């Protein structure tokens, strides 16, 4: 257990050993469809496809998927509501096409978020980072991102431990103590991150690996069947959306 539910789900997913490129094709295709297709029925179909694939064949826990959607949902709700309220000379009111506008915005945002979550809950970050090299991102940048990914779980663990100890000592019993504890907590995490980085560097240097920790990336072969099904499914989704949207217009 890493402490991040989405990351835990990715490591435990039935699609964990599928090629990251295959999953990027599927999720990327769904994200683009959510962005460019009409909200009805395009966004609905994209959202349903992402949720069904995640909870079905990829075996992502429904609770994890549902909890993860809560983050963007709050922003989407507030943003969409704000966008359809008008401020005129007569005070507050609704935009003329408020329902359609809000529906379209919420639909494409929820569908896009579900498509990104499909990738996030089936592909650990350590599988995605090597793909950045193929996009010509400099090796040094990918190395820094990899170290960030590895260290953040150590720091999150430190954060929880220190906060637990502070709470047990009544560190958050009043607002004033809460502020002081939060400052000390952030400082403790920062100094621990420096200390951890220094000790890792000393350990690597002692083993003659002064340019960083080089590891063999796991090879996850691409599946022609999965790719063909993805392209066919996306084409069907686009066609159906355009036909239904055209009939409704």
């Amino acid at each position: 257990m890493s402490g991040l539910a989405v990351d835990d789900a990715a490591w435990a997913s039935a699609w964990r050993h599928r090629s990251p490129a295959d999953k990027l094709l599927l999720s990327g295709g769904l994200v683009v469809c959510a962005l460019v297709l009409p909200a009805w029925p395009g966004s609905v179909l994209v959202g349903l496809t992402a949720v069904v694939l995640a909870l079905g064949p990829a075996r992502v826990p429904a609770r994890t998927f549902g909890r993860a959607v809560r983050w963007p949902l709050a922003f989407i709700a507030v943003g969409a509501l704000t966008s359809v309220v008008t401020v005129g000379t007569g005070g507050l009111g609704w935009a003329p096409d408020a329902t359609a506008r809000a529906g379209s915005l919420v639909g494409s945002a929820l569908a896009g978020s579900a498509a990104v979550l499909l990738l996030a809950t089936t592909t650990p970050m350590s599988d995605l980072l090597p793909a950045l090299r193929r996009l010509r991102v400099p090796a040094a940048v990918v190395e820094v991102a990899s170290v960030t990914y590895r260290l953040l779980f150590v720091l999150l663990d430190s954060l929880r431990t220190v906060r637990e100890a502070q709470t047990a000592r009544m560190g958050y019993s009043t607002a004033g103590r809460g502020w002081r504890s939060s400052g000390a907590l952030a400082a403790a995490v920062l100094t621990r991150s420096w200390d951890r980085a220094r000790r890792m560097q000393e350990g690597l240097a002692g083993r003659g690996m002064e340019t960083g920790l080089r590891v063999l990336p796991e090879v996850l072969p691409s599946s022609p069947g999965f790719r063909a099904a993805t392209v066919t499914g996306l084409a069907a989704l686009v066609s159906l959306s355009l036909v239904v949207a055209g009939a409704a217009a």
Partner: protein
Amino acid sequence: MHIAEGFLPVTHAVGWTLAAAPFVVHGARRVVVEVRERPESTLLLGAAGAFTFVLSAVKLPSFTGSSSHPTGTGAGAVLFRPPVMALLGTVVLLFQALLLAHGGLTTLGANAFAFAVVGPWAGYGAYRFTRRLGGGLLAGVFAAMVLADLATYVTTATQLALALPDAETGVAGALVKFLAVFALTQVPLALGEGLLGVLLFRALTANARPELERLGLLAPAPEPAR
């Protein structure tokens, strides 16, 4: 506050990505040069990225009764400078999108422009200005963290207003709406983050003075008289 996936039209998503790209590429080049000259920097920069991510998991007591989370880019800009934060901030945003479902992939460029470019530069500018006026480290850090947070929030509100103009009053009306709605959480958060920065750097001054001296934030302590 990050713009969620699918919230921006394609043209806006592409436009903000192009706007953020030069800053992120510049940051990446700085990191490549730094790592080439000092390979041990890889781990320190990775630690800085992880700290920025983890800082967003620190719950702050909110003035409105609930709790909120700092962005951490102001502290990062003071400690590691804005060009490096442009890259680290973008990496952190990518991780937040894929590990916390916070933000998105097509909105990564827009969020990077607000969170990793405008925020750190505004924060660092406020820090340098305060120090030049004679303010101490803590005053500079407070200004940096408040300004970085406010600049990020104003930029995000502007991005939303440009994408979703008001039916009657256009972009200007939409900007007023988004600024007003998000001010309820973002203004108290900015002040809270400034306070957190003061407490953070006060603790660092007491416990990690050599690191702050090495980063050029504090003058080396004078040798004790013999």
